[in-house]
């Protein structure tokens, strides 16, 4: 067991054995992670466990997952029934064996249309999120880090956009550019980004004086590098919480636009438009308007529950 290369080889063998003995769970929960990869995996694991322990947040997560699955695998879930085939002889049929949710005023299967409608909802939510979070982060971190004049100008800009009425502005956009998902997304994004800028700015201001930022400056890092690699990652958890909670409201706004006929255009199924179409027959055929509306409600509720759960984990101070 002594002497030169033999000893080194043996100690390496012993270490390898020790590592191999760690189960995946032990590796994730290790108190002293050996690499950044292990540390990231570990914190994700802990966050995931905390989330799953919260029953309501779990319900929210399941609903959101159901939305994504419905959007991705719509043909499978609708059992091959097309949301577009009309059957005027069988229009306004009540829920039954042939049509689980009944048929609408043109004889299209409501269940299939509800499932395919998830695509329009998911598209709007994803697009708005992808636009709004980076823009808000960029503006907020720049304002917080650069300070003085840049900060004042950017915050003034943020305040101006905060004062815009969201739905009415979307209506004006639609009036000018015509209805459609893209215009709805632009209109919603224009008014949805300011809160993220404020959030990112508040977080940035809190950390901009810390020593490690000063250290990176001394090492010669450019402002861009500091902002993107050191400041922004710290703001991400608040942004994610806020984004999830905002998604609930954005779904409602998008559905409202669809209700007014400004979202996805017919014949593409969209929940808000389906509620509007069912409005005329609500007294006798309640299912045409009620079921898509319930889908909107359920998805919004899911995002709210998930967002509340995420906030409890990631930001417990602000209950």
């Amino acid at each position: 067991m002594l002497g030169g290369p033999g000893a080194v080889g043996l100690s390496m063998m012993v270490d390898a054995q020790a590592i191999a003995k760690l189960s995946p769970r032990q590796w994730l929960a290790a108190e002293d992670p050996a690499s950044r990869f292990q540390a990231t995996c570990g914190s994700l694991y802990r966050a995931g466990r905390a989330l799953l322990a919260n029953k309501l947040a779990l319900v929210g997560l399941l609903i959101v997952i159901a939305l994504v699955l419905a959007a991705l695998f719509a043909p499978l879930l609708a059992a091959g029934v097309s949301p577009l085939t009309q059957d005027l002889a069988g229009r306004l049929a009540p829920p039954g064996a042939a049509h689980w949710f009944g048929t609408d005023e043109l004889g299209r299967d409501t269940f299939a249309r509800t499932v395919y409608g998830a695509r329009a909802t998911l598209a709007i939510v994803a697009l708005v999120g992808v636009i709004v979070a980076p823009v808000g982060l960029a503006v907020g971190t720049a304002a917080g880090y650069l300070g003085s004049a840049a900060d004042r100008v950017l915050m003034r800009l943020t305040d101006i956009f905060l004062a815009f009425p969201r739905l009415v502005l979307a209506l004006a956009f639609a009036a000018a550019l015509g209805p459609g998902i893209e215009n709805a997304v632009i209109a919603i994004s224009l008014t949805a980004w300011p809160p993220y800028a404020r959030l990112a700015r508040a977080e940035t201001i809190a950390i901009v004086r810390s020593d490690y930022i000063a250290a990176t400056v001394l090492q010669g890092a450019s402002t861009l590098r500091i902002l993107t690699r050191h400041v922004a990652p710290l703001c991400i958890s608040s942004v994610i919480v806020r984004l999830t909670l905002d998604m609930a409201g954005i779904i409602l706004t998008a559905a409202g636009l669809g209700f007014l006929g400004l979202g996805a255009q017919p014949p593409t199924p969209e929940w808000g438009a389906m509620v509007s179409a069912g409005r005329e027959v609500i007294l006798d055929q309640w299912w045409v308007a009620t079921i898509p509306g319930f889908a909107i409600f359920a998805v919004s509720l899911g995002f709210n529950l998930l967002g509340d759960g995420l906030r409890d984990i990631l930001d417990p101070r602000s209950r």
Partner: protein
Amino acid sequence: MSVEAAPGLSAAGARDGTGSRSHGAATRLARASARAASLLGSLALTFLGLTAVTFFIGRMSSIDPVIAVVGDHATREIYDKARIAMGLDRSLVEQYLIYLGKVLRGELGSSVITSHPVLADLMHFFPATFELATVAILIGVAFGVPAGVMAAARQGRGFDHVVRVVGLFGYSMPIFWIGLVSLFLFYGKLGWVPGPGRIDAFYEDVLEPRTGVILIDAALAGEWDIFRNAFGHLILPASLLGYLSLAYIARMTRSFMIDQLRQEYVTTALIKGRSFVGAVWRHAFPNILVPLITVMGLSYASLLEGAVLTETVFAWPGLGLYITRSLFNADMNAVLGGTLVVGGVFIGINLTCDFLYRLADPRLREA
């Protein structure tokens, strides 16, 4: 918002050392007016931004504004002349300034459908939305604030859970859907409320519109039949909007109160012999008034937006219905004018909140 006092006056105050009373008052006045100027400046900037956006949207429209005036069959000469007369040959910045001038004078164009000036139309339809939103916010505040406070006081127990669930449902609910469903239930099936519209056709145009708010006008004229009828029409949409508002206000109040009740001064008050109720309402509650005013302002603003959808469902002849109808008739002047007015009301709400902050928190009264 930093306050830059007028240099001359502050220098005078500094020269005087502690300053006599008159110099103190002068500096206070200077600071207050500087603050007011700064506030008006930011409001003006916001309004400019709003007009820039509406101007830009108007320019993006695919409808050629010249053709809208001269018609399809105009000759090239007439088209060019009209174009110059409308100022469309000038630079974009000049056109924007002309537009801004018109807006400030109240000339928002004429509506294509009603052929009235847009501003007159908006003034005609605004009271209905105002009535709806105001009754809704009153319901929201009257029920939401106590519910939030009591939920925070009983955190973790039965009442808290009820408030949280009720609130959660409230801000996940699409207003147009719940409006439709409740109209179906309470009007279609149960017959508890009169139907859509602001007032039965029987009573329309009977009252002389003094404020435009039917409830107030009917009460002033002593027409209690009309008052009851209008109230019956108002109760359902206002309750639904009120529920939405209540959910948001209760949630935020609860969150603020939980933060306050955790602080040491509450424990101190309890130890010194205050009852729990007293500690909650007289010590903790006044501290949340400032963020609560912000929340109420935000809620009122979102109620105005929610009214757009509610008015469509309940055929309530307000601003929202006017804007959506103009939208479907491609009446750009009306849509943009309506957007400006709604944006202006948002700015007005911000201003009112700023004013209310100073009333609520004595520390904000001094610079």
